[in-house]
């Protein structure tokens, strides 16, 4: 018996950590000590707040390094990190630490910004809410995916995998459970970090609709 898919949604309440950075060394120190929810927040905030943009701005670290410290090479390394390939926030944190340590070995940490432009570390509390939408089969799933909020889409794709450390996004897991292996694999293969959320919604709808008869 296949379980129905219960669509959920989520909201964030942003916490201020009062940890700041004015140069790469302080950014490194901050990245090492902030909670995992802070790494999550700074690598995903832009996706939700600017979800309509294409190309989307990169993560907060990359944006600050590039636009405030003018360290374009370092900023590009942060922007180019393949977020989707990391299992959880600790692995992603370790990758950022390595980039910064390698960079500072070669270049030091001489560039500083003024007080007003410091990087402020934040984190978030995630509130997970049920929605009235329940899908019993792929056809219902597509109909619902057309109308759920982007917060719901965001929750099942990003939050489930990166924050709650599930093996895969919730949609792929459900299709796999019902034996729709091809659909599950195709949805899992999408890199959601390089597409707008509306684009992501349409792509998933397209994949599920195309494979409906499999």
């Amino acid at each position, binding site marked *: 018996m296949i379980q129905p898919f219960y669509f959920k949604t989520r909201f964030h*309440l942003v916490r201020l950590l009062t940890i700041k950075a004015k140069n790469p060394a302080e950014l490194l120190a901050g990245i090492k000590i902030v909670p995992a929810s802070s790494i999550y927040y700074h690598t995903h905030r832009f996706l939700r707040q600017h979800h309509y943009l294409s190309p989307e701005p990169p993560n907060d670290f990359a944006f600050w390094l590039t636009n405030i410290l003018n360290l374009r090479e370092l900023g590009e390394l942060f922007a180019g990190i393949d977020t989707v390939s990391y299992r959880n926030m600790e692995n992603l944190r370790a990758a950022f630490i390595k980039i910064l340590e390698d960079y500072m070995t070669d270049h030091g940490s001489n560039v500083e910004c003024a007080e007003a432009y410091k990087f402020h570390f934040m984190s978030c509390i995630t509130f997970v809410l049920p929605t009235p939408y329940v899908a019993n089969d792929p056809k219902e799933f597509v109909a619902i995916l057309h109308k759920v909020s982007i917060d719901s889409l965001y929750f099942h794709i990003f939050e489930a995998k990166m924050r709650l450390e599930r093996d895969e996004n919730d949609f792929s897991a459900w299709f796999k459970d019902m034996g729709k292996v091809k659909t599950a694999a195709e949805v899992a293969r999408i890199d959601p970090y390089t597409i707008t959320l509306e684009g992501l919604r349409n792509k998933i709808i397209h994949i599920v609709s195309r494979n409906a008869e499999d």
Partner: protein
Amino acid sequence: MPKISRYIPIVGQGVIDELYFLGEKLEGRKIQNINSTAVGGGVAEILTRMVPLLKQIGVNACWDVIRGDEKFFTITKKFHNALHGVDIKISDDEYQYFLEVNRQNARDIESWGDVVFVHDPQPIALVEMKQRIKNKWAWRCHIDFTHPRSGIMNFLRSYIEQYDSAVFSAPAFSRDLRIPQVLITPSIDPLSDKNRNLSAKKIDSVLEKLGLEKSRPIVTQISRFDYLKDPMGVIKVYKSVKKYVDCQLVLAGGGATDDPEGMQVLQEVKDASVDDPDIHVFFLPPASDITINALQRASSVILQKSLREGFGLTVAEALWKGKPVIASAVGGIPLQIAHKYSGILTYSLEGTAYYLKQLLQDPGYASKLSANGREHIKNNFLITRHIRDYLLLFLSLYYRDDVVDL
């Protein structure tokens, strides 16, 4: 006050449904807002709109105002200035009087909420009641907290740290405190006179009344006449752009006529514009919201070239109206504009002039920025998001984990 349902065509049914859901989760809990003034000022303005909307979604919200005499408010004005970094002496007697007024108000309040939400420093010491009542307390700081004087900060800290949570409007305002700190940015109300849709006829009538030409680009800065808003810098920017693009400049804003510095800035701005009929300076009386709305809607580009800024909600107002904005990267402005995505952030007069020329000459680029800007405001800076954040804040007082399953 508009019905909450009037926001559905703007933000969608789903957003309003979610507010009702969160409101249900606060069932049985009374949310008591407390501030120091019922009318006038930003806090009263927010609460006037927020409290009725919270009630409409089923939250038992109320609003109490503390009482104080002239002496009390003279002291709290000193607090305000000291929090903005002004070197001002506050005596022990004044601190003592401040506490006495707070304690008298605490005795006068007949019933307390399950959550007491205190706004700004004036009623901050009411939190002394927390030990007796055993309820939840949150403190909302609406003011710029970037450079507080240490004396006032140390005094307030002893009270702030008795709260369960402190709320600030921008990351730079947070302080080293032993309690959780939350970021909740201000918002604009899309149904207020300052932001609601206006007919083309209404906009045209305002332009005609003010002597502006619809057929040529209008560049506008809305702000009070204050050196920190750099109106003289805006005139320099306009003059350097005017050599290449025929346009009109509008500098419009209000201010207190008993503010001598404001009047001096206004006079300097008028003097600097006297030889150019395309520079229009308007000192607007209170209740000019529709005029401001029309000016923003008639503009080709909006500037906010402040040297310092609190949150700078005029940026959100302009972006909401689908206007390209060039603004200084100060205060809360970088939260509202992602450079080259939803507007332009600048650091100098030269940079501002460069981008102004570009936006006036490339309407396609300007229009992409403004479309992104409006969408960003819709998703992040409307009153419905503000209400949602407050609901989440109240709920957060009852949970300790980073992930909360409601």
